[in-house]
């Protein structure tokens, strides 16, 4: 076990972790931040996406030791208080979620994508989500929600 300091959603945490542990397990099991979901645990579904220094990474493939000294943001760090991020707002409004299990990963993928690509086409949105598995929606309402979010962010 190693004692490390992690910066998660702007707060500092000192935790004991195994050297082989992933940030997904550290977040869920040690910090009890369960918004980040464990679906496949092998890098195929995008449900565990978190931000490392602003970039989306798969939590299940990222060793916790690699996150030391970096800024980690999870789904719990996305909405400021009661204000939903436009991506979240439109996923809710447009029913871009059903069971909701993939949704935190979709949000964590789409938010930085829109920051770098403010005016994407539907095809570009589809491509940007190509690593996020959703079994409920058929993706249509997710894509449309993200396009609406982009429009709101641009206005």
């Amino acid at each position, binding site marked *: 076990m190693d004692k490390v300091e992690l910066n998660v959603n702007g707060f500092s945490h000192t935790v004991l972790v195994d050297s082989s542990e992933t940030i997904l397990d550290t977040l869920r099991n040690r910090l*009890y*931040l*369960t*918004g*980040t*979901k*464990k*679906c*496949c*645990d*092998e890098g*195929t*579904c995008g*449900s565990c996406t978190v931000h490392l220094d602003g970039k989306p990474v798969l939590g299940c493939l990222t060793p916790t030791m690699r996150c030391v000294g970096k800024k980690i943001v*999870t*789904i*719990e760090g*996305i*909405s400021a208080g009661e204000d*939903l991020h436009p991506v*979240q*707002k439109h*996923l*809710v*409004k*447009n*029913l871009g*979620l*059903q*069971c*909701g*299990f*993939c*949704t*935190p990963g979709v*949000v964590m993928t789409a938010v930085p994508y829109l920051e770098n690509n403010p005016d994407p086409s539907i095809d570009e*949105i*589809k*491509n940007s*989500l*190509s*690593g*996020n*598995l*959703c*079994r*409920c*929606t*058929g*993706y*249509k*309402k*997710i*894509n449309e929600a993200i396009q609406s979010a982009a429009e709101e962010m641009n206005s």
Partner: protein
Amino acid sequence: MSGPVGKATPYIDGVQKATGQAMYTDDFRYPNMLYVGLLRSSYAHAKIKNIDIKAVEADPAVAAVAIGKDIPVSFGVLPISPDENAMAVDKVRYVGEIVAAVAAESIEAAQKAVQGIKVKYEPIREFLNPADSLETCAPDEQIHDHTKNGKNIHKTAELRFNDPEKEFESADFVRKEKFKFAGVTHAFTEPHSTIAIWNGDETLTVISATQVPHYLHKNLSKVLGLPIHKIQVKKPTLGGGFGGKSDPFAHEMITAYLSMKTKRPVKCTFSREEVFITNHGRHPTDIDMTVSCDKKGNITALDTDVIIDGGAYGSFGVVTSYYNGVLLQGPYKIDKFGFRTRRTYTNKPQCGAMRGHGAVNPRYAVEIVLDMLAHDLKIDPCDLRMKNFLPENTLTVGQLRITSNGVKECLETVRKKSDWDERYNKLPYGHGRGVACGFFISGSALPIIWNRYPQTVVHAKLDFDGRIVMFSGASDIGQGSDTMLVQIAAEELGIPMDFVQVEAADTKTTPVDLGSYSSRVTFMVGNAAKMAVEKVRKEMAKAIAKEKGIAIDSIKFNDGKIFTKDETLDLSWVEGVEIAMAGRGAFVESGFYISPKLGGDFKGSGAGLSPAYSFGAFISEVVVDPETGEVNVEKIWAAHDCGKALNPLAVEGQIEGSIHMGLGQALSEDMRYVKGQIMNANFFDYRIPYSVDTPEMDVTIIESNDGEGPYGAKEAGEGPIHPVLPSIGNAIFDAVGVRMCELPITPDKIFTKIKELK
């Protein structure tokens, strides 16, 4: 309707889901909690000679060990085939079957400890192919003792009306075709997870990712020998089911047992590989489909012979066997009709119920054969279908009662919207269009466990705070049933939705409901909810009428107000609640739903009975690359008759999700086994469509407004998957002239067929 019913309504738990606040089973933790590690069989079929747990019992991280003989009572979702055990008792029947379990202080310790259990096996002949299971074998080779005639046939379901075979001898046109379908699985995103808590008052609480708390409740009682009133099953937020969380599961029994044994909370969460191994997905299926028609294109007879590969245990298999046949009685009128389905046991993970239960594969077969007949007759496949639809308010040959029926409108809609008449059979080589229809139950009219109770009961509670709480056993599995309950209460009482809250799927606090399967929830729970809230409204109106000295019937509830048209009464909702509470306080009203008595008087007549049926018609456009055999589904026009859409947003979501799942089964999904070992238990190798694989979708909701459904509603969760697969299959024929009768339709299969054609 002036309230939220019929309007696009975001889910009441949408914000929680979008912010990560929604709690799924694995997100809960309890003080002093233990974790389960499971030892699984490495043999497909073997006797257990010995299990040595001594070393593990001595492990300081291990609190308890369990093996099959500790809880040997068999269970299963159907009371007619309780053929499973929590852990293998005398023998294992598939690779991955649970043999032993430990509860330990951490997940890592549990997984490590369980490997210390030593099992001696004696292999038996393996049955990996349904054809072998149809043959007689030696008694000690049988997978289960209870199968008849020395064969491994679990169930033969057969019905025949008016001698279809005879019709084939003299029919103008007959087509007989063989089909083969790979097994597919639900692949819900949330892995199975269960927490069991043995409480200080000697009651058991089980939190589980289940579609059916009621069946889990009953089976836990049976296996654990614990009185049923001492067990509470709760379903928290659930990450998808599609039928795959509707059985009671072995790991649920084990987790509960370990909690009773250790008197500590115990958690068990599966890895993705374990989810694949657990399966319960759609059966691998072989179908011989024969259909005849006359010169005008009227279907004269249908007969089909089906073999479904059930895997090692029964699950919903008896129902699946019937659904493979009986649900071919619609949407076309076929008076000479027959089927036989044989479900075989094999040494593989069991198959069960999956979206569109039992009817998806035969639907593919019949819609492809109808397309062939349309070509034989040289008539448009849409015209052939239009000629043959069942009318409204009729009985099928097997006495399924058809009430509302919007199938004609569905087909007319997609035909027009897709510009079918200008495009079909007119696109360049490699591009094609295909059409297919669908038909499904809106709730099973008969309960799995026979009883004299209603199908569901909903309680609506009104208290001093003006809040209505809907208590329902219905399981929201992502389809939005909690939101539906709120919509109905708000509609009936004329109040904003935020006055209504839901307590659901908890066998201690909510009245029993049979669960989320067979597309029953909107129809049955919706009706019960409406009745409960109507009674609340009547009680309130009675109290207000008495106090104000006005006629009960003159009182209206709308827009958060309680009033009369002539404005002699003008109360806010909260003022009305205060009057209704006077002298009695909070009260609860109860609503229920009982299916009408349906069906014929013959063996097997109960299968497929439903108070209403959904219908649909889809058209797909594909592009096939003849050089590689690759298929791209470009666009799907979908029209589905769901009765009244209580929440059009949710109905569209179900149709779009069905397209996704149907596309996967049609083109890429395939549970592959070698010597009984699953080879693709991950999302790299089991290919599910991702966003980039998804076609453009044009979805139309057709509202036939059923006379018995709540506000006219039927179902949308399962019916829309049926037309997806055959519309793609028929479009491939239109594109490159090859009939694809084996699913999934992978590029190599198309390429080979195109080469054969040349």
